[in-house]
């Protein structure tokens, strides 16, 4: 095993020497171009296009959760709360749900005649980010003094409370016969994104939706990359590795942790707002605990703390969940003589993936460099010096 690994390492450095130094940048540019022209290769309303849009939106969420869990090491099991708040931001400010109000800002000519609050999608996107960032801080505050696994439980509890409020929001009145949410009936007839000069989106042509979420992904990706290399990003990693040492080196604990929660939550909320308009309704039934685990699985499978890993994990699980399982592989158990469909056991499959991943390859598909050093027992000689700094493998922190 170690010989194989050494051989791989050798090939890898050979490839690195052979390629020009700017190959990484070139690869990224190539991926972006491929991402932009991708929808032109498929029919504009195909199932594959739909799966792609959802997968990209998952990748945005995965990037957000990666900040909290991967960078800062705070296990958040209630990420669905931000999906819910983002989607409800869209439901509240981009539909006729608050029918007593008449507020219209930069919306399509049709929507501007309807009752309710109708804001432009970009405004809602920003609003959803801000609301979720505030919620992230509120959720983060009680966890500041707690140790790792208690954080998981408190965030989980918050996620569940938001879910319960979403389901029962029909009985919470906010005045004038209007309620907080529409519960399991769902807030329907939400606005489609509209941009002056481009017009309104519709679900017959999925390409603009794709480009919209792809643009959001690029922005979030850029912010992530810059954050990772910033002072704040290094502070997160330092807190993750050793809280006591980091604080004694002068890292402000409260501010750093809360910023991780807030920024991670904001991305989740933006993706949630996109899902709200893309699914054309905001239904309380969407916001289950399983969704938090689903997003967490993306981060883990991609590689905790790895930005490209989070993107790959999000895309992979998005395609598996929305294309591979329902469209391609769904009939297999029936063919093998079992009396169930693959969609029924999808959460079992994700659970299985989590266990397998943690036991066999805990560093994920595209491991973060630092974590790879921590988790592999056999460290290549060139990295041995580096490896001594972050602590011996398996010291339990």
């Amino acid at each position, binding site marked *: 095993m170690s010989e194989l690994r050494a051989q791989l390492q050798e090939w890898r450095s050979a490839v690195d020497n052979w390629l020009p130094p700017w190959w990484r940048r070139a690869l990224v540019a190539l991926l972006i171009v491929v991402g932009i022209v991708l929808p032109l290769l498929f029919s504009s309303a195909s199932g594959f296009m739909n799966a792609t849009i959802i997968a990209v939106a998952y990748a945005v969420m995965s990037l957000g959760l990666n900040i909290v*869990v991967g960078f800062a*090491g705070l*296990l958040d*099991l209630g990420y669905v709360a931000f999906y819910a708040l983002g989607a409800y931001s869209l439901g509240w400010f981009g539909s006729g749900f608050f029918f007593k109000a008449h507020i219209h800002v930069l919306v399509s000519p049709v929507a501007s005649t309807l009752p309710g609050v109708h804001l432009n999608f970009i405004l809602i996107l920003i609003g959803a980010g801000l609301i979720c960032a505030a919620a992230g801080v509120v959720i983060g505050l*009680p*966890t500041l*003094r*707690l*140790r*790792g*696994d*208690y954080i*998981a*439980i*408190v965030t*989980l*509890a*918050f996620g*569940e*409370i938001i879910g*319960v*409020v979403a*389901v*029962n929001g029909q009985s919470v009145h906010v005045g004038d016969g209007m309620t907080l949410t529409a519960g399991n009936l769902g807030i329907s007839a939400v606005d489609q994104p509209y941009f002056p000069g481009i017009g309104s989106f519709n679900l017959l042509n999925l390409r603009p939706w794709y480009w919209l979420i792809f643009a959001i992904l690029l922005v979030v990706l850029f912010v992530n990359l810059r954050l990772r290399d910033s002072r704040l990003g290094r502070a997160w990693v330092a807190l993750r590795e050793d809280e006591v040492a980091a604080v004694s080196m002068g890292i402000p604990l409260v501010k750093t942790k809360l910023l991780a929660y807030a920024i991670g939550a904001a991305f989740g909320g933006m993706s949630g707002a996109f899902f709200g308009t893309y699914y054309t309704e905001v239904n309380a039934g969407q916001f289950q*605990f*399983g969704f938090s*685990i689903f997003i*967490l699985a993306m981060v*883990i499978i991609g590689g*905790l703390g790895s930005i490209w890993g989070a993107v790959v994990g999000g895309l992979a699980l998005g395609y598996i969940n929305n294309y591979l399982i329902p469209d391609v592989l769904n009939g297999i158990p029936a063919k093998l003589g079992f009396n*169930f469909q693959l969609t*029924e*056991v999808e*959460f*079992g499959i*994700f*659970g*299985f*993936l*989590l*266990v397998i991943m*943690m*036991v066999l390859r*805990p560093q994920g598909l595209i491991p973060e460099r630092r974590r790879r050093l*921590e*988790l592999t027992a056999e460290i290549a000689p060139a990295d041995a010096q580096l490896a001594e700094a972050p602590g011996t*493998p*398996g010291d*339990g*922190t």
Partner: protein
Amino acid sequence: MAARPLAAVRRYFGRWGLIVALAALPIYYGISDLTNGYQAGFVAGHAVIHHDLSKLGFNFAEGLSNGAIWALIAIGYTLVYGIIELINFAHGDVFMIGSFTAVGLWGTLGLGLTTGALGLIGGLIVALIITMIVTGSLNVLIERVAYRPLRGAPKLASLITAVGFSFILQNVGLLWRGGSPQSVNDLIRAQQPVFTIAGVPILRGYILAFAVMIPLVFGLTWFINATRAGRAMRATAQDPEAARLMGINVNATISLTFLLGGMLAGAAGLVYALYETNVWYFQGFKAGLIAFTAAVMGGIGNVRGAVLGGLIIGVIQSLSDSRLGPQWTEAVVFGYLIAIMVLRPRGLLGEETREAG
């Protein structure tokens, strides 16, 4: 100078905050029942208003017996956390598998609504023992497959495999008995009152819950305190490394802990099926979170604390079910969980873990 009163307030809240928060609901509803009264039923189209505490008493009776079930599950959490400092997320689902096994065994053993009293009791005891063996072994298996390979890895890793296993077990349950709650035979006629104390009817289900819980808890306490294996468990919980040096087989001790926790969860599963007379694959998730809340409330790692916490959570749940409506109960329980974490993370009776010292 301003800091000092603030510190006093904080100390006060640290000591009494949780107790005040816990007492708030029953005291509020007790006063409300006495002054405003409550609707006890309809006679000839008119609401009958009572001004006494028997509704509160009813809430307590129901809550305590429910809490006995949560206590059994909570002990499993607390034992495992005490020994390897892991929140065994799959524990609630082991409880669910326990319920399903028990219900399956009734069919195998031929227990039905027409079975005589003696046959029923004998059959249930056999079912209880087999269920406990099944869930205990399942829990040991989970530890072997999902947690032991990750013993040296960061804590996050085993927490994630625990969540993964919880989903796998839920899916097993889903395929086993379908996606919606299934009602099962009310073998012991759980809702039948046996006697009445101060206007509060005591149902058969209540007696069953305590009849199973009390001997098991005493048995467990005896096992931990008096036997050699129990001493090994305590030693491993305090310091696994030192325990290993003293010749204790740490891996076997951890397996034993999982076995005991799984057995209690199986017992809770059987009682739950008899008491609630319905089972479904998702019961374990909710029960697991409630029981974990109970374990934290009592002080994690502490068996007496888990029992106390279970009983208290049961009462809170029952109060919320009958006063606020069952749809809010989950939010109330989780609200308490967060309050405990903020006000008194060490729990009512103090935690007994390595980090607590």
